[in-house]
């Protein structure tokens, strides 16, 4: 028995968001009286791996097959299934990403496991039951769900646990798997990614803009504030639909749902579909010139005012803070 944690990499390093997934896994392992073991697929700086001990992993399996630098759905499933078999994993923890969803759904069938997505807290475990809390209705509500199979796969959202670092280094072991040709179908020809930018779903702070910004030429106002706060930028649906911003920044019921520590919305009215995607943020700030904007009802802090005046002021104040 063990808990297996799938760690994600980016630009040759274990992603910071995976520290949280690892820690979550170690806490589940503690609940079950077993150990947590990580798995990394792709080319990752080997020096990153022992460090995962700080987040409670006893061991990390490492597959650096050169064919798997990019995400290849079938192959990643096969490697994860192999690691699950070797470690006798009864629980497998994944991040709640697009890539992990593509793995988790197939793995659940292959390993005959219960699968839960969008999980926001540690499970409740008894001798006979295993229950998780997840967001449903795109963030408008929560569900407590019993996972009834012996094996469970859990995709965990950001901020599901508060990480407490500890002493210790993880043992590292290579795990190479003979792949079938069919495993390699769907291998990307090319991956196009904004380098050096934090993806919205992984950011602690998100600064987001709506139609109130009037056009892409004004986005520097948001970006400047985001830079000053070390934040990622996001947008409302009409903004992405109009092509002002790339689609992967669109948050809401039909975009990504996020749970950062701080969400700052400027020039966004707060339509129910938008709120669904962001209302599990810890703190919400709304800047809108319309005092009746529905978003204020869902906010912790609000400023009624013209964002063209307010954003530069906030940027200056944030810069002053970091000096």
């Amino acid at each position, binding site marked *: 028995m063990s808990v297996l944690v799938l760690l994600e990499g980016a630009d040759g390093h274990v992603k910071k968001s995976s520290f949280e997934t690892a820690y979550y896994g170690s806490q589940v392992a503690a609940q079950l009286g077993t150990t947590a073991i990580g798995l990394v697929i792709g080319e990752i700086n080997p020096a990153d791996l022992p460090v995962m001990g700080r987040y409670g992993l006893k061991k990390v399996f490492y597959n650096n097959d050169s064919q798997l630098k990019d995400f290849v759905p079938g192959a990643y499933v096969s490697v994860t299934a192999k690691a699950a078999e070797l470690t006798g994993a009864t629980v497998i923890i994944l991040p709640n990403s697009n890539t992990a*969803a593509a793995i988790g*759904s197939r793995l659940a069938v292959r390993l005959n496991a219960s699968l839960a997505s969008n999980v926001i807290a540690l499970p409740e475990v008894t001798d006979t039951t295993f229950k998780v809390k997840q967001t449903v209705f795109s963030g408008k509500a*929560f569900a407590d769900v019993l996972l009834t199979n012996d094996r469970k796969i859990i995709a965990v959202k950001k901020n599901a646990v508060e990480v407490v670092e500890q002493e210790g280094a993880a043992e590292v072991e290579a795990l190479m798997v003979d792949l079938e040709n069919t495993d390699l179908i769907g291998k990307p020809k090319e991956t196009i990614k904004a380098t050096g930018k934090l993806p919205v779903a992984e950011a602690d702070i998100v600064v987001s803009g709506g139609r109130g910004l009037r056009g892409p030429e004004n986005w520097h106002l948001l970006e400047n504030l985001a830079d000053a706060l070390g934040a990622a930028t996001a947008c409302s649906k009409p903004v992405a639909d109009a092509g002002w911003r790339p689609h992967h920044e669109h948050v809401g019921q039909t975009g990504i749902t996020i749970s950062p520590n701080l969400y700052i919305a400027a020039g966004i009215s707060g339509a129910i579909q938008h709120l*669904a995607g962001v209302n599990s943020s810890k703190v919400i700030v709304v800047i809108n010139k319309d005092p009746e904007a529905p978003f204020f009802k869902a906010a912790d802090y609000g*400023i009624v005012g013209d964002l063209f005046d307010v954003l530069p002021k906030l940027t200056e104040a944030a810069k002053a803070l970091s000096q």
Partner: protein
Amino acid sequence: MKILVCISNVPDTTTKIAFTSDNKALNTAGVQFVINPYDEYALTRALELKEANAGTLTVLHVGEADAEPTIRKALAIGADDAIRINAKPTDGFFVAQQIAHHAKSADYDLILMGKESVDYNGFQVHGMVAELLGITAITPAIKLEVTGHAANLEREIEGGKEVITAELPLIVSCQQPMCEPRIPNMRGIMTARTKPLQILEPVSADVKTQYESFSLPEKKVGVKMIDAANAEELIRLLRNEAKVI
């Protein structure tokens, strides 16, 4: 080209979610059900591909009779025929097994569906069907083009996208900006009434999760307003009071 589009029937996105008094189920009183918004991308893209490649388009729904208006709407938008597998869609794996059982003997070139349904947000049926059928799923796709037997796709990843080519048959989960979803026109609505809708009984299938209860997020206690003339104060509060920066 033979295309299957799987649709789910979900509360309209403007719905204020509420649960029954025991918190065991969605309170459906006054709730309008619609085609899952992500499935609309799958349906419209499938129509465009069918029109360009001379194919057939079947829609499939796993659910009970009350979903028939949603199925008729998909027919009105342009699907040729529909199948309803008559069962309560208890969880993602149950639905996936029903879809896979039907698709196994039907030789579809493409199976499209939304990346997730906006009710239970499992984001999992496509992958499960893929594994059950032993074919590849590309998920979530923001672009799908087909020439002969080859598909060119783009898949959304956190902060970017991947460019992928793959051979049919394929399962593709769809989301914006794949296409501009179509709405039914009058002629479509008229012809939809007479298009075939076949009702099949479910195969026995495993269920591996059980929804025990539902709850709503806590309401915010009230917003603290800061004067725009004094906007800098916000940054101080975020640091000293909320402690998030």
